């Protein structure tokens, strides 16, 4: 879902052109856009993020070639993954400040769900770091983010190659389910260790009369994928039809 949400709802890091914004009004819209300074900053931001995720991609490939297997590749890219995924928190700021026309709530939701998986699940429960499901979502996220950030970069520069647009609105068909599977399997793998260690859990009695069961919380998170993922997925499918057919028509008139 973190994978799905990131592609589906983010309208852009200042990107022009077709958007997949879940909260956006279609039709006429006053686009005042970010100023020149903001645009320069956003271009730099998106270029840096594209580069960061490329580093992760290259890191994965090199680790695979060096090890000869695809198991436990997480450790080779752990640091850049944490750095660049956490850096995406800036995108919430971009929306809040207004240089990106996306909803703060939606963007927060997406980024927080990614950050949650990285820190509160994978980092916190060391035993799952060697699971193959981690590789599944890392690959899905890496490909998605490389395409997404380059999409925004090119849009900001008003030169969006059709290939990037096509990739952004097509590859999700496979990458979403792949990412979601990886995420769910990872959370599921973490469950017994959370139960056993009482991670992030408080029980009664205590001074503030409060309790929290992280195990139950993780199960609730998994359940929440059921209503949320299909909505995001079909929204993207709908956007794809709109965006890609619109381009086709444009081409006809050239």
């Amino acid at each position, binding site marked *: 879902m973190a994978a799905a949400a990131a592609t589906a709802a983010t309208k852009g890091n200042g990107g022009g052109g077709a958007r997949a914004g879940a909260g956006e009004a279609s039709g006429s819209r006053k686009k005042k856009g970010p100023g020149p300074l903001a645009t320069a900053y956003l271009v730099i931001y998106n270029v840096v993020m594209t580069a960061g995720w490329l580093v992760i991609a290259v890191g994965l490939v090199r680790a695979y070639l060096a090890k000869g297997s695809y198991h436990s590749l997480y450790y080779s890219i752990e640091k850049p993954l944490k750095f660049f995924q956490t850096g995406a928190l800036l995108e919430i700021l971009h929306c809040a400040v207004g240089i990106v026309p996306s909803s703060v709530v939606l963007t927060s939701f997406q980024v927080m769900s990614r950050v949650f998986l990285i820190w509160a699940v994978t980092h916190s429960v060391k035993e799952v770091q060697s699971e193959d499901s981690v590789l599944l979502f890392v690959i899905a996220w890496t490909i998605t983010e490389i395409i997404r950030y380059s999409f925004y970069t090119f849009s900001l520069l008003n030169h969006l190659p059709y290939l990037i647009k096509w990739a952004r609105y097509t590859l999700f068909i496979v990458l979403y389910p792949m990412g979601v599977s990886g995420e769910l399997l990872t959370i599921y793998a973490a469950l017994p260790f959370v139960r056993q260690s009482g991670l992030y859990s408080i029980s009664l009695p205590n001074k503030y*009369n409060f309790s929290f069961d992280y195990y139950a919380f993780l199960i609730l998170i998994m359940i929440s994928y059921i209503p949320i993922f299909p909505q995001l997925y079909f929204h993207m499918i709908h956007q794809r039809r709109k965006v890609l057919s619109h381009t086709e028509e444009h081409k006809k008139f050239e």
Partner: protein
Amino acid sequence: MHEGRSVRQWLPEASWLVEILDAKTREKLCFLDKVEPQATIAEIKNLFTKSHPQWYPARQSLRLDPKGKSLKDEDVLQKLPVGTTATLYFRDLGAQISWVTVFLTEYAGPLFIYLLFYFRVPFIYGHKYDFTSSRHTVVHLACICHSFHYIKRLLETLFVHRFSHGTMPLRNIFKNCTYYWGFAAWMAYYINHPLYTPPTYGAQQVKLALAIFVICQLGNFSIHMALRDLRPAGSKTRKIPYPTKNPFTWLFLLVSCPNYTYEVGSWIGFAIMTQCLPVALFSLVGFTQMTIWAKGKHRSYLKEFRDYPPLRMPIIPFLL
């Protein structure tokens, strides 16, 4: 279609034509002829319901412009900027439910639910605790306070409040009840738990907190009464509220919505009394929502009344 000629036929200004179009599709939905120029929007809504009974007046939004603001029920046809043939645009507001119904449901829930936990009804705590009673005085006190609070709210809904809107969208009842009932259950679970820990500073803390709670409940009630007296029965007039002889209303000197100020105060009192984190979180969420409402109310007071007292803040004196 016209049976016979009446005098009005010869005086075209005496009866107007109203056509109602769908705001989204511009489809012609209804054509009302022989409408009195002094007719109100409410009357036009009633006429529209006759041809489209599924759209009762409460769910109709009629406006002069498809994207414009809704016309009010009291607006009179001839006072609107239209010719003798008026074109109104219709938008369906969706199923509606009366405010009174929503309030009664959302308040009756917490009252009842809290008691389920207080009496330790089976299947909540372990079976050995079924129908047992807490040994802590504060737990019994908390039940009295919580129940009093919601009984007060129910009685105010029935006898005190004067609502300016009759209805709200139906989906609100699900949203609101989830909020009230959910939080009530969550708080009640901990306060009435067999492993509940009483406040750190004991009876002193409880007494202080109880005093805060009672004062704020009285304050909140005083404000509700003052607001009710501001508006005659059946009317929808709006006036600036001012302090009355009741000292609790003197908070009007400093805030626009002292009812919300007192409400937050009550819950802070309850949180201190029970020393229960979920109560504090409930207070925080409530405070956030009430601040949004207070700011909105404050803004509309400022817009409507040129002479609005400048010292007043929306909800917290001098600060917010």
